[in-house]
C-alpha cells in the first residue's frame, strides 16, 4: 500500500485537520509522511500588501518564518504519533504544481489534503488548489473533510 504520503498544508484550520488525519492514517498503514508548505515568490508588481511594503529579503524571511510555523505544527503531530516524517518549504506561484512536483521528487505515492484551504468555500465548489491537484496529479489523491 502507500509508503510515503505527502501532506500539503497552508496552515488553515482545515489543513491542520487534514494533517492530523493524514498522520493517523499513515501510522495505521505503516507509512511515513512529508509535510509541505508552499509560499509565493516575491513580486514587484503585486496586490499583496506584505510584498509591496517588504524588501525581497524581508519578504523571504517572513515566508521562511511562516513556513517554519506551519511545518512545526506538522512535526509535532508526526512526533506525537511516532512516525517518520520530512518537512519541505517550496516557493512557487502555482501551489498545485509545487505539490505535484514535490510528491514526485520525494517519491510519495499518495497526496492527502483538505477539500478547502485558506480561501475557504466562498464562491468555490472545491478549494482551487485541491481541485487543480486532483485534475493534474497522476498520483492518488485523498480529499479529507
Amino acid at each position, binding site marked *: 500500500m502507500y509508503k510515503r504520503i505527502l501532506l500539503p498544508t497552508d496552515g488553515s484550520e482545515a489543513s491542520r485537520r487534514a494533517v492530523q488525519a493524514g498522520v493517523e492514517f499513515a501510522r495505521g*498503514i505503516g507509512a511515513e509522511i512529508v509535510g509541505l508548505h508552499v509560499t509565493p515568490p516575491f513580486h514587484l508588481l503585486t496586490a499583496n500588501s506584505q510584498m509591496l511594503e517588504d524588501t525581497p529579503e524581508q519578504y523571504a524571511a517572513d515566508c521562511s518564518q511562516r513556513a517554519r510555523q506551519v511545518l512545526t505544527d506538522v512535526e509535532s503531530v508526526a512526533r506525537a504519533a511516532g512516525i517518520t516524517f520530512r518537512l519541505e518549504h517550496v516557493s512557487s506561484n502555482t501551489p498545485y504544481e509545487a505539490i505535484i512536483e514535490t510528491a514526485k521528487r520525494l517519491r510519495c505515492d499518495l497526496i492527502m489534503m483538505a477539500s478547502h484551504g485558506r480561501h475557504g468555500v466562498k464562491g468555490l*465548489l472545491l478549494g482551487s488548489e485541491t481541485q487543480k491537484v486532483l485534475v493534474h496529479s497522476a498520483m*492518488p489523491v485523498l*480529499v479529507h473533510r
Partner: protein
Amino acid sequence: MFRRILVPTDGTELCSKALDAALQLARLGGGAIVGLHAYAALARAVDQDSARWRREREQQAGDALAYVRRRAREAGVPCETVLAHDATPYEAIERVAREQACDLVVLAVHARRGLRARLIGGEAEKLLAHGTVPLLIVR
C-alpha cells in the same frame, strides 16, 4: 483507519482499480467494503425495447456486484453490495455512503489532457463539490 469503504462500480476496468485500492485499505485496517452499482430505473417497461434495456441493465448490475463480492472473498475482506436506483450516480453514492456509515469513498477517474483537464469528470466532480465523505481518487 477506514472501517467501511464504499466502492461505486459500473463494472468497467477503471472501477477495478478503485476496488484494488479499497480492498488493500480494508485489509490493512481490518475494515469492510460496500460495493455499489447505481442506475436510474425506468418507471415501467413501456415496450419491448425498454423491457430488454431493463433486463440488460439488471444483468450488468448483477455482474458488476458479483465481481466485487468475488474479489472481496478472494482478498478475505467482508463485503456487502447495494444496487441503487437514484436519479444520478452522485446521489446514490452520497445516500448509500450515509446510510451505510461509510468513512471513505474510492473512485477511479480517467486521466485527462488539454481542455478537458479542467474538470475531472461528472460524478467525481459533484461528489467533491457537494459530498461530505472523504474521497480517495485513483487513476
